[in-house]
């Protein structure tokens, strides 16, 4: 089931041969990303402008179709938004308009909004073998009882820092800094 938040190219990347059929890895296309930092009052004002409330509970995410807000810390959120069209120009345009709308909504409320659209790559690991494969490199308990759908956290993938987000029972989005993506992909192919 493709996730509407991500443009998913058809091309799949190599996975460890130990992973059974039906599990796949893809690099999602460019996405608008912001890091929003500020206190709870500031965060509360972002929701209306962005269209998704910023979750106040640790490790929580909120989403509506093509937008999502991921809790990253007590004063930090990662905002994701899919542009209407593919390609960097659409990303630029949506980033510009969103930045304007959020800034307007915040007014004089102190905060920081930084465009990090190109800082990250989203790797989509999807299928029945996804959690097992992740556990070759991620030390967290990924049992659905311990890491339910919607949970998101910064963690280590062997030696790379990633943001791990469970988008459905069998699907995970791995947000990592672009230059670390080959390392993460290499390990997922080797596990």
């Amino acid at each position: 089931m493709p996730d509407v938040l991500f443009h998913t190219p058809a091309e799949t990347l190599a996975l460890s041969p130990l992973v059974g059929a039906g599990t796949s890895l893809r690099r999602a296309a460019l996405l608008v990303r912001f890091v929003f930092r500020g206190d709870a009052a500031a965060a509360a004002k972002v929701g209306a402008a962005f269209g998704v409330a910023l979750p106040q509970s640790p490790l929580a995410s909120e989403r509506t179709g093509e937008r999502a807000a991921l809790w990253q810390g007590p004063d930090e959120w990662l905002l994701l938004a899919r542009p209407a069209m593919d390609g960097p120009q659409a990303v630029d345009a949506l980033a510009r308009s969103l930045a304007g709308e959020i800034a307007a909504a915040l007014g004089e409320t102190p905060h920081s909004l930084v465009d990090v659209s190109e800082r990250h790559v989203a790797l989509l690991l999807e299928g029945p073998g996804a959690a097992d494969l992740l556990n070759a490199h991620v030390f967290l308990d990924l049992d659905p009882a311990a890491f339910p759908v919607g949970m998101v956290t910064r963690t280590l993938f062997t030696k790379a820092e990633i943001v791990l987000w469970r988008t459905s029972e069998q699907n995970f989005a791995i947000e990592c800094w672009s230059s670390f993506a080959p390392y993460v992909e290499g390990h997922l192919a080797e596990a």
Partner: protein
Amino acid sequence: MTLSFRTSKGGRIDRAKSVKFIFDGKTLVGQAGDTLASALLANGIHLVGRSFKYHRPRGILTAGSEEPNALVGVAKSAAAAAAGQSVPNLRATQVEIHEGMVIVSQNRWPSLGFDIGAVNDRLSPLFVAGFYYKTFMWPKSFWNRVYEPFIRAAAGLGKAPTAPDPDRYANRYAHCDVLVAGSGPAGLAAALTATRSGARVILAYEQGEPGGSLLHDVGAQIDGRPAAEWVSAVIAELAGNDRVTLLPRTTVFGYFNQNFIGLAERVTDHLADPDPSLPRERLWQVRARQVVLATGAIERPLVFPENDRPGVMMAEAGRIYANRFGVLPGRAIAVATSCDSAWRAAFDIKALGGNVVAILDMRTDVDPALKEKARAHSIRVETGCTVTGVKGTKRIEGVRLGRISGDTVSSAGSLACDCLLMSGGWTPNVSLHSQARGKLDWHADKGAFLPGDPVQAQRSAGSCRGIDGLAQVLADGARAGAEAAQAATGNAVDVPAFSASGSEVSSGWWLGAVPHDRDASRVRAFVDFQNDVTAKDVKLAVREGMHSIEHIKRYTTTGMATDQGRLSNMNALSIASTALANEIPQVGLTTFRQPYTPVTFGTLATTSRGDLFDPVRRTAIHDWAAAQGAAFEDVSLWKRAWYFPKSGEDMHAAVLRECRTVRESVGIFDASTLGKIEVVGPDAAEFLERIYTNPWKKLGIGRLRYGLMLNEAGFIMDDGVVGRIAEDRFHVTTTTGGAPRVLAHMEDYLQTEWADLKVWLTSTTEQWAVIAVQGPKAREAIAPLVDDIDLSTEAMPHMSVRQGHVMGGIPCRLFRMSFTGEAGYEINVPPSRARQVWDAVFANVERLGGCAYGTETMHVLRAEKGYIIVGQETDGTVTPDDVGMSWAIGKNKPDFVGKRSLARPDLMATGRKQLVGLLTKDGKALLEEGAQVTAEADPAPRTPALGHVTSSYMSAAAGRPIALAMIANGRARHGETLHVPMPNGAIAVEVVPPLFVDPEGSRLNA
């Protein structure tokens, strides 16, 4: 040799499927299901190795991972062996044979049967305890040249593989409610109980087949069926539950803090032709809420003279080989014991048609029922009788008997036999409890240390805590499983009851040396087989003043082999306590440590090897640079283009050309790896004011400033150019390697010291690719590509920043700045379009006669201008004043990180090392970076250096080599001649100001 040592029936081997393998060049046949040890025994082979120190012939002693003697080198095939791909020191008792496996015995030359090193055995009076300490002390100068090389050459048993490890290794993190270590009756009962409660369970066991003792306890019944059938039913139930993970061939090797458990799973070693997608081994790193240790007990050898000869074997091992593998360990088998359980071995072997010549029990008060059963089996029984020696060297031919009467032993003749099964009773296997920092309690009635109160969330079950008898062990396992599951899940747990018969409680044990009537000075009774430690060695250690078992252990090396003394510790301890006339608990017990048994390096490395050892970070321009033939250098995790050699150019020529080109026309450089941090919020300027030495509040929007960052101690930790993008927004750059450190440093201060500041940090290192264009034609190179920024010096002077677009709408932050001394720009664009912009700029650069340059040229150009590189000119002990940068300190600022330290007397003292330039007097010699600088050309030994060379390059602009150096009182020495002593003679240098090009800086503002 034939397989005539196979029984006609019984055993869990596949009699229909024979397996050919090679042992020391000879092809042998075993059956599927054999271990190497059982297959060798089936071929009548006991002699499998030579001992570590005395090179004594050694046989198979045990049937488990505690095996001290039968260590072999194993290759998967003849081809693998020829390619140097073998694994040394594997225990033959654990190796499962497969077709084509090639095994070599170890520590012998030229052959196992005839070994030159065996001369050590006749020299054994020399190699007493403490031999190394006594022998290799004098003369002191011999240590490095003679003794250590000799000891290293003699050390170790097996040969390390010569070829790189071709196998893959995997890692797996896991979490569970209950981890059970061991699949004997206690472990299975615990796992079953925990599983039925709904807990998430991991059951790990060492062998290929689960069941532990139940696999050879042929007479035992559980819940009305044979024990082995019960095992199959339990395993089927566990395997059918998706909350259970069964891990065969898996050793729980490490019990770490917070119930973090290390497991090594041997995935393919037992397969002749494994699926290539499988890893050879898998490391499991498990976080278990609760742990049940069901690691059983290990039978203890009897310490009598010549007890190490091939053919002498543990009694239970003999029973295992007979019952489980269908192998009789000899044609005439004697049993020497002080414990009931060994009688079972005799009875089972007899029942399989073996020839048991006698049971020799040291005790006089043996259970009459056992004697009755022996009589029924027509087995000769001697009580109050012991073995006092062995005949035969490479295989026993008989044993000497001794009659025990009080403390004395008198000869009782001899007995012909080719196998002796021995038992001194059982030592509970408390290794993992001890690893988990649990204390051990001495139980004099059982002659054993048993687990005391656990420190971590674990409990022992079954015979590893001294429980004996099958019914009792099953009940204890169920109890432990229930307790663990309840503690982990909070659910109430039903404790199942098992009915069991057979394997009744076994009584009797013996600790320490067995008394004998032999000349004590001429015979040796082995305590630690793997390290060749005898009862005499332990006594000698005590006589020489070692009173603690910790000292005795290190002096004699008893218990220091790979089995960590699981076979030997209790006997050694007993001998020591007798010699010391002290109680065993007072002498102490050494601590068991990780790993339980040796773990391969590959398993610990897992997938972190080769290209995946560390992340390799590449910029958006990397592929272009690679296609241009750039050489790369590693800068932290990044690959950076180092220089771009044209055909025929070496590095020297390429760098000279690149430097000249930048100064004469223009160069393009990939600066993407620089760290970038967006500092945003109403207090952003105030924050920078505190974190940097420089003043920031008056920096205008659109202006840049070089920032210098100190640590708390007042030393330079990083630097970089900072741009003010808006009133409340700064674009901070850091060094490539310093980016994570700087962000953590800033965040640390914000969270702990200045939580009141309304400012937030976001790393933007990878949001922007950075294309540096430097040189007199830099503006010309970029101007055609810039959409909406006025590049004139009036509109955009040196040290300014503008936001705009390039190439028809690509957003950019354009910095006008320089790290070369030339006019220059840094174009920050999104990485997705960096290559497009780079290609366009490069085309202009080339048209203008420019070129791409790498980090080496960047280093040279900045050195010509005397710009420091943090980590090259600085080493963590350098202040701003030391490098002539007092100008970067905001004099009127009330505070900044490091300010107070700068006022410390030693940081203000005269004579500190200061940054200077050095010019070689001959104008030709290139100094070595790191070379020491002295006042004299040929200073007396131990004269302190005045400083050292930090940077040294051939400078195209200066037309000669230039260098930077940190020299004591350097700024006062301009004009002085100093010397750089080198192996071929000192190089005379003149101290000059650290500035070699364009001292007025006029080129920057062009």
